[in-house]
């Protein structure tokens, strides 16, 4: 299916670019893998949480006496027990609340011998609420005299961001065309198949062990500690296999400190696991936003400026969600050359559920707007639509207004490859001509693109990783790494890199990465960083081990180290590949000689990037990558149903490491984006989620999956491992606007507020027919 534009290296048999299975796949296929959700510890109690079930209220009375007396109940906790244990980005959250600010606010928690007893205990807790007027949109929250959600955040103001570059008035005056729209990216949620779960246990020295689904184990300790009133050094984080994460486990959420507080009180292990309904209501969402965007260009198709004024629904507490402008502004100000930029974003507290990070993080929302406006302008300018994209596409060596340095940029190649493979130019013209002719089913084609960090993101003081690598007497290699595995496949990448450097079979590599007492520092699985960062860390450690081994081999064989190589489990002669000494034997010789040595190396790798500055002008990633999606769809103009027939992808991957994992990440990332585009929608009415189940919250299933035509463009990133870049978020980011542009191509209708559900599409098509205001198929605001 996929093609690679650059021939792979042929000089030596290489692992890089091969297809390899995940090492944990056989156990997952047979049901042997024990996920955190499956874990049971001796003496373990079950913790359950009482949620408020109303969006904004004072707690007038709370009586837990009956619950505490129920046989089998070991602890009941309420807000009184956690006073002062503030946590979160701006310390606006506590594990158990003394005031209700959203539907899923945690009011009380119990630990009991069984789930049934715990549930019964929750029912025995008596609570009287005094409901307060609520705030359910950011516009309402920002209004003068709006109800206050937090006493110490006046005007319900949460985070604020601004970035400006260039003279806007001048650029506006120089523009022949300006498109001006309001986009409203909506609330969706991760829907990890394994529901949220934590198991906590304190030893009698006061040290907490927490089994968690976290995808950032080290900063997690720092974030969890204030919610418990203990030192981060007294927390051991263990990461059993998880049923997905996708960004949802990149912060501490109240059920985790609740499990720990219950464990502390009972001196027994306590497990808290959500039901699916609890998962829907109490998990973070993707950040919703109201984006007022304007983009201008000249008649010859040169972009002149872009502005974005973003209002974000913060929800009741601040997690990663409202920090997305940091990523949004890169897409708004970059990826196409935008000489003048004016970006601002404000988050407003509301009584709605609050957002965390979610694969694509801010860029899903930004690309939804930018890619649609590029398509609108392409119809207005005097040049061919593809030419318009190519003319404004950033190229290698350019520096964006935010000071992102684009080395090895192949955006032009991505555009050209995807357009040629899908016959974009011809079809776009042909389908547009068919648009107003009779016929129920209409075909459309749409192009969208974006940029994303592909070499980490230095949003913390460090974006680094520690690696410890040892080779034992049997030439088996263990890599102890901070890189977390949440299903995405860093395990295979690490095995392949070790195999490449040390010439051992990949299955002889064991990875230890799930215990913070053992594995060294890492910033976590986020920002498409793990293959890049952990790949580099592993490679550097393996190269240190390789040097030590080759030096020892040279001494043993009376050869020069540079004349030797490691292949197929042996030390070989570089020149002709002749095997000279089994690696396994060499390892034992090294160990048992009069001056014994063991191969055990350490490495700390910090990528070549700058910390995200307060002014958002720094090269915060060591690499950037572009992707182009071209979606081909069929629209049923009667029902409004969109069928995505084919998606052509051209993405800068730097270099393919594990081809199978790469394909899987791209296909899976697109599936999440398809749900966002077409069907997923949290229906939140006055702060209450109305569809907390898979029956009413529609995920993409197998029949909706289009044909994929994947093109991996290899740009050979100098900073990346073997040239690789991070890849996993762009697929989720780019697909939705590609479909939106295809919908316009097919029907002349634009949807600004996802999802493009059949009802919305059918209504827009109907309204367009009724109005029929514009001969070229005018834009209908939704």
């Amino acid at each position, binding site marked *: 299916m996929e093609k690679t534009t650059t021939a792979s290296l042929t000089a030596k048999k290489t692992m890089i670019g091969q297809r390899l299975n995940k090492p944990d796949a056989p156990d997952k296929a*047979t049901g042997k893998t024990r996920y955190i959700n*499956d874990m049971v510890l001796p003496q373990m109690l079950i913790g359950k949480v009482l949620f408020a079930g109303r969006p904004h209220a004072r707690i007038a009375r709370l009586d837990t006496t009956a619950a505490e007396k129920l046989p089998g109940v070991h602890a009941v906790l309420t807000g009184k027990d956690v006073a002062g244990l503030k946590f979160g980005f701006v310390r606006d959250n506590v594990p158990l609340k003394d005031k209700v600010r959203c539907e899923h606010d945690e009011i009380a928690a119990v630990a009991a011998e069984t789930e049934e007893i715990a549930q019964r205990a929750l029912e025995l807790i008596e609570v009287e609420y005094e409901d307060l007027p609520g705030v359910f949109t950011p516009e309402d929250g920002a209004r003068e005299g709006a109800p206050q959600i937090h006493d110490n955040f006046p005007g319900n103001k949460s985070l604020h961001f601004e970035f400006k570059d260039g003279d806007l008035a001048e650029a506006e005056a120089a523009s022949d065309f300006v498109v001006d729209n309001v986009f409203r990216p909506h609330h969706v949620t991760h829907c990890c198949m394994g529901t949220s779960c934590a198991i906590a246990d304190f030893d009698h020295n006061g040290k907490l062990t927490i089994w968690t689904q976290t995808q950032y184990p080290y900063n997690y300790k720092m974030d969890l500690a204030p919610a418990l009133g203990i030192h981060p050094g007294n927390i051991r984080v263990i990461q059993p296999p998880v049923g*997905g994460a*996708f960004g949802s486990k990149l912060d501490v959420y109240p059920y985790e400190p609740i499990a720990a507080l219950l464990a502390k009180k009972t001196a027994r292990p306590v497990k808290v696991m959500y039901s699916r309904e609890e998962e829907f209501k109490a998990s973070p969402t993707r950040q919703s936003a109201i984006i007022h965007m304007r983009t201008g260009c000249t008649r010859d198709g040169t972009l002149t400026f872009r502005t974005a004024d973003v209002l974000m629904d913060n929800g009741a507490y601040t997690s990663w969600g409202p920090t997305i402008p940091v990523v949004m502004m890169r897409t708004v100000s970059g990826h196409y050359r935008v000489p003048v930029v004016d970006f601002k974003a404000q988050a407003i507290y509301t009584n709605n559920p609050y957002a965390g990070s979610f694969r694509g993080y801010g860029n899903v929302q930004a690309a939804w707007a930018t890619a649609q406006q590029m398509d609108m302008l392409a119809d207005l300018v005097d040049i061919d639509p593809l030419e318009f994209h190519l003319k404004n596409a950033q190229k290698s060596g350019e520096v964006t207004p935010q000071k992102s340095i684009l080395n090895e940029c192949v955006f032009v190649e991505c555009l050209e490859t995807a357009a040629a493979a899908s016959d974009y130019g011809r079809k776009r013209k042909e389908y547009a001509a068919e648009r107003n002719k009779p016929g129920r089913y209409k075909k459309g084609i749409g192009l969208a693109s974006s940029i994303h960090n592909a070499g980490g993101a230095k949003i913390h003081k460090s974006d680094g990783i520690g690696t410890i690598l040892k080779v034992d007497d049997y030439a088996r290699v263990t890599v102890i790494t901070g890189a977390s595995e949440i299903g995405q*496949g860093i395990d295979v990448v690490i095995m392949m890199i070790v195999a490449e450097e040390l010439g051992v079979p990949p299955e002889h590599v064991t990875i230890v990465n799930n215990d913070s007492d053992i594995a060294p520092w890492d910033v976590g699985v986020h920002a498409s960083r793990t293959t890049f960062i952990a790949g580099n860390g592993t490679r550097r450690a393996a190269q240190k081990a390789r040097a030590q081994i080759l030096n020892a081999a040279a001494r043993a064989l009376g050869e020069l180290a540079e004349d030797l190589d490691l292949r197929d489990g042996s030390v070989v002669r570089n020149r002709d590949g002749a095997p000279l000494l089994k690696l396994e034997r060499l390892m034992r010789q090294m160990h048992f000689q009069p001056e014994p040595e063991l191969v055990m190396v350490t490495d700390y790798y910090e990528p070549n990037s700058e910390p995200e500055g307060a002014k958002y002008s720094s090269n915060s990633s060591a690499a950037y990558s572009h992707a182009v999606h071209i979606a081909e769809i069929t629209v049923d103009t009667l029902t409004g149903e969109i069928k995505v027939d084919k998606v052509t992808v051209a993405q800068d991957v730097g270099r393919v490491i594990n081809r199978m994992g790469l394909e899987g990440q791209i296909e899976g990332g697109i599936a999440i984006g398809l749900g966002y585009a077409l069907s997923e929608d949290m229906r939140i009415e006055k702060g209450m989620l109305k569809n907390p189940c898979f029956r009413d919250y529609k995920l993409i299933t197998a029949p909706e999956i289009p044909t994929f035509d994947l093109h991996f463009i290899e740009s050979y990133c100098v900073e990346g491992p073997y040239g690789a870049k991070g890849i996993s978020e762009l697929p989720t980011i780019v697909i939705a606007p590609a479909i939106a542009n295809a919908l316009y191509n097919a029907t002349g209708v634009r949807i600004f507020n996802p999802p493009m559900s059949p009802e919305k599409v059918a209504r827009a098509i109907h309204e367009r027919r009724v109005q029929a205001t514009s001969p070229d198929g005018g834009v209908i605001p939704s």
Partner: protein
Amino acid sequence: MMSVETEINFKLNGREVSLRVPATMKALAMLRDRLGLTGTKYACGEGECGACTINVDGKTVNSCLMYAVDCDGREVVTVEGLRTPEGLHPVQQAFVDHGAIQCGFCTPGMIMQAQHLLENNPTLTREEAKRGLEGNICRCTGYTKVLDAVEAVADKNGRCSHG
């Protein structure tokens, strides 16, 4: 709270089992909490996601909807029961070989359903596989590699060409 317990006898993964279960207990809870077969997953509890799919008398069911007492006298196969002494079941092996497994949480249910489809239609087409797997949600893979795996087994079963 108190619930009547009933003795049930059934064949589970080829072995006779006998146990007492409350009338309100679901088959999923029995398998996971009483019999230690945690391969069958809880993910929604309402028959909407397929993660808890098991095979009962040759048909796949969502074990989260089935009462444990209804297993009485039946033949039940879970994902743990597919493996043969020689190794993985061909469907399991195909999932491994084709990259159909990422986080793997949906995998047991997906494999149980795929195995059932292939048993009843050994040379099924991709379109038939898509429809047959409609009730199994996967959040990681985008289904493409799952369908590749199912098709690979259909090809091995003698399917002429891709359908």
